[in-house]
């Protein structure tokens, strides 16, 4: 498959070109299929003779490129469709896109004579790197130490390994340290991308705007092997709405492309581009304001989602109402300008996290955690620990430790770290407070129950406890050796009840009818963030997600030639938005605290990428009257649509 790596080793960079010249590789071009719907056809070239569609009854006897079919149903769609007074059926598509991290994949691996392996690499999880290497090379986990380097962006694309097992095998064989670094072209050809796909949406409503039936069919590209995020795509696309009759079908489809990788809220942006574009088309057909249509159909606490759960403690409607009252909506638009609204949902997850809290001899505190910091989470960890201990934030130093220095932690992904690892950090700090009270009691020679902890100091709990001057954390730390030894605590948990993320975005655009260029004039992203631990970093996550979504909307795509070769493996031809392309994105935080978290935190990093594609498409439709149903809405595509709308100008003009 294109993008699959053919390993070769080289001793030094200087000798390598010569060595590479001596290698001859012959490729036989086989029948192939790139497009998702072409791959689903009965006569399509079959990628795997042993791949049979899961989820269909009876079990198929012939292999297929459809790896899996999933369905979710609520109510009776056919009956609901009959009830509808206004119906709409549309088809939308999106292309594969790359996660677009700046730092390419790279690693150094050294295997010692004693068989101990050390891996230095940047990823979204050092424990994930260790696990894959151990499994692939049959090495005990205890014999691998994975060191987390600082990460220059991941966005889901570094939740799996490409280089580390290869480097480890080569180091083991050669007895020397091995370094492998991808160049940008290799990153594009051999890693990621996120799935492209097809999204067929049907919405049926009463004339008053109440939606009574919805159907969503999702066909997602998995790449050469099964595993597209079709399940989340199906579950997220309509999650924002309270619709009595819903039918959702998803297909996980293999084709001759690189195997897809996760990308921020995997699957949700895809299907939501379809459903939220269709919501806008329905609003126009009903002549109802698009914010009002969302408000009147919004999921609330007690609403049953199409995939089953009954929502509790959700903040979707609050995001719609906040958007409705935002001054952005009152700004008048000019010629060739338009406004789009779109909403989105992402689950967020919890999971396994470990953390340690060590009180140092001078009263400063070290927090040790196992999750690479991809969005400022270390700052949040320090803030939560400082809050629990009652000491200044700058007295706490958070450290992301290697796999031999902290307990297991699931990777950084699913918007889980501030929630789950933050919970572990807080609990570790709270255990330290219990210990600090014991140490103060030992110094005062009273019972630990007679000590209370307030603002970073131990106090006698009342007049009966005795009369003592308060002891600060620093004073207790100084005497730790005399009161029982070092003061520290470790906590390992499996955090549950992450609390979902909800968002509603407003986008204003101006379309240049000559070139098809779309300028983003203003963008407001309203999001239920639980409780923002570090508000400016939350704002950064929202702005980053929106920016990536705008890139996905307007320019980004994998372009293949007729022989199935990728034509744009570099940032010159794969156009991502840069700062000069965008206005300041306004992040509006709605706080519906998560009762499961000690400070009310919910994940915030993924849902901001869910609404932008539809928000931009809806704004373009508002500006031009042209509905762009295929991503990206890049200048050539929009220009072609404008050409269809208006007759081409005469040469004499």
């Amino acid at each position, binding site marked *: 498959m294109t993008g699959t790596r053919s390993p070769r080793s080289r001793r030094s960079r200087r000798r390598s070109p010569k060595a590479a010249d001596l290698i001859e590789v012959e490729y036989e071009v086989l029948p192939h299929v790139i497009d998702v719907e072409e791959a689903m056809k009965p006569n399509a070239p079959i990628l795997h003779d042993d791949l049979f569609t899961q*989820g269909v*009854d009876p079990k198929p006897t012939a292999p297929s490129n459809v790896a899996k*079919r*999933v*369905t*979710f*149903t*609520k109510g009776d769609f056919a009956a609901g469709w009959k009830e509808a007074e206004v119906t709409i059926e549309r088809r939308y598509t999106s292309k594969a896109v790359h*996660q677009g991290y700046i730092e390419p994949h790279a690693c150094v691996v050294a295997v010692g004579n004693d068989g101990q392996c050390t891996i230095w690499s940047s990823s979204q999880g050092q424990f994930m790197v260790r696990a894959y290497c151990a499994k692939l090379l049959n090495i005990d986990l205890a014999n691998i130490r994975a060191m987390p380097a600082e990460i220059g962006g991941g*966005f*889901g*694309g570094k*939740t799996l390994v490409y280089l580390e097992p290869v480097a480890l095998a080569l180091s083991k064989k050669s007895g020397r340290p091995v370094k492998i670094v991808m160049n940008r072209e290799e990153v594009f050809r051999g890693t990621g991308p996120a799935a492209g796909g097809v999204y067929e949406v049907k919405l049926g409503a009463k004339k008053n705007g109440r939606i009574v039936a919805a159907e969503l069919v999702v066909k997602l590209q998995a790449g050469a092997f099964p595993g597209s*995020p079709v*399940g*989340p795509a199906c*579950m997220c696309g309509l999650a924002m709405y309270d619709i009595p009759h819903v039918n959702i079908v998803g297909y996980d489809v293999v084709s001759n492309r690189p195997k897809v990788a*996760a*990308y*921020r*809220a*995997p699957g949700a942006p895809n299907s939501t581009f379809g459903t939220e574009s269709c919501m806008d088309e329905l609003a126009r057909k009903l002549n109802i304001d698009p914010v009002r249509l969302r408000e009147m159909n919004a999921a609330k606490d007690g609403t049953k989602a*199409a*995939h*089953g*759960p*009954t*929502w*509790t*403690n959700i903040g979707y409607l609050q995001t719609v109402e906040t958007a409705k009252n935002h001054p952005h909506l009152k700004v008048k638009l000019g010629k060739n300008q338009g406004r789009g609204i779109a909403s989105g949902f992402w*689950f*967020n*997850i*919890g*999971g*396994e996290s470990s953390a340690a809290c060590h009180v140092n001899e001078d009263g400063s505190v070290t927090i040790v955690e196992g999750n690479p910091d991809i969005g400022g989470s270390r700052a949040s960890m320090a803030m939560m620990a400082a809050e629990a201990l009652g000491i200044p934030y700058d007295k706490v130093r958070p450290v992301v430790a290697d796999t031999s220095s902290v307990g297991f932690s699931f990777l950084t*992904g*699913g*918007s*889980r770290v501030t929630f789950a690892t933050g919970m572990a950090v807080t609990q570790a700090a709270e255990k330290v407070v219990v210990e600090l009270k014991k140490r103060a009691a030992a110094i005062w020679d009273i019972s630990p129950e007679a000590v209370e902890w307030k603002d970073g100091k131990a106090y006698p709990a009342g007049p009966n406890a005795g009369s003592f001057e308060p002891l600060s954390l620093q004073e207790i730390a100084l005497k730790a050796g005399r009161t029982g030894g070092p003061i520290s605590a470790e906590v390992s948990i*499996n955090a*549950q*009840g*992450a609390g979902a993320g909800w968002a509603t975005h407003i986008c204003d655009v101006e379309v240049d009818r000559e070139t098809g260029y779309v300028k983003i004039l203003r963008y407001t992203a309203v999001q239920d963030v639980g409780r923002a631990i570090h508000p400016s970093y939350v704002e950064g996550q929202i702005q980053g997600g929106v920016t990536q979504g705008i890139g996905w909307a307007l320019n980004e795509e994998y372009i293949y030639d007729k022989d199935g070769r990728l034509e744009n493996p570099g940032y010159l031809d794969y156009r991502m938005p840069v700062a000069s392309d965008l206005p300041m994105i306004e992040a509006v935080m709605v706080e519906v605290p998560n009762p*499961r978290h000690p400070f009310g935190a919910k994940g915030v990093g*993924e849902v901001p990428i869910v609404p932008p594609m539809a928000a931009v498409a809806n704004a373009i439709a508002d500006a031009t009257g042209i509905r762009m149903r295929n991503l990206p809405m890049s200048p050539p595509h929009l220009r072609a649509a404008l050409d269809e709308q208006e007759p081409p100008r005469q040469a004499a003009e």
Partner: protein
Amino acid sequence: MPRVLITGTAARRFTGGQTEVAVEADTVRRMIAELERRFPGLGHQIDEGMAVAIDGEIFQDAYQTPLSPDSEVVLIPKIGGG
């Protein structure tokens, strides 16, 4: 008894199309064991690839989570992230 709802095909193929099952169990672990006993393969399927939504809150790999007699449990695909 807690009610287990099966909305997706991944789990429904084990129940012969049945979409709701009452289960005598007071923890997720016991619920999984009971479902495996009644629908062989379903417990393994939950262990390997599913999450449970208990009264609207999602739990993954959480054997000890308690269930109350009126709990609504929904089996959904396990959620990852990016």
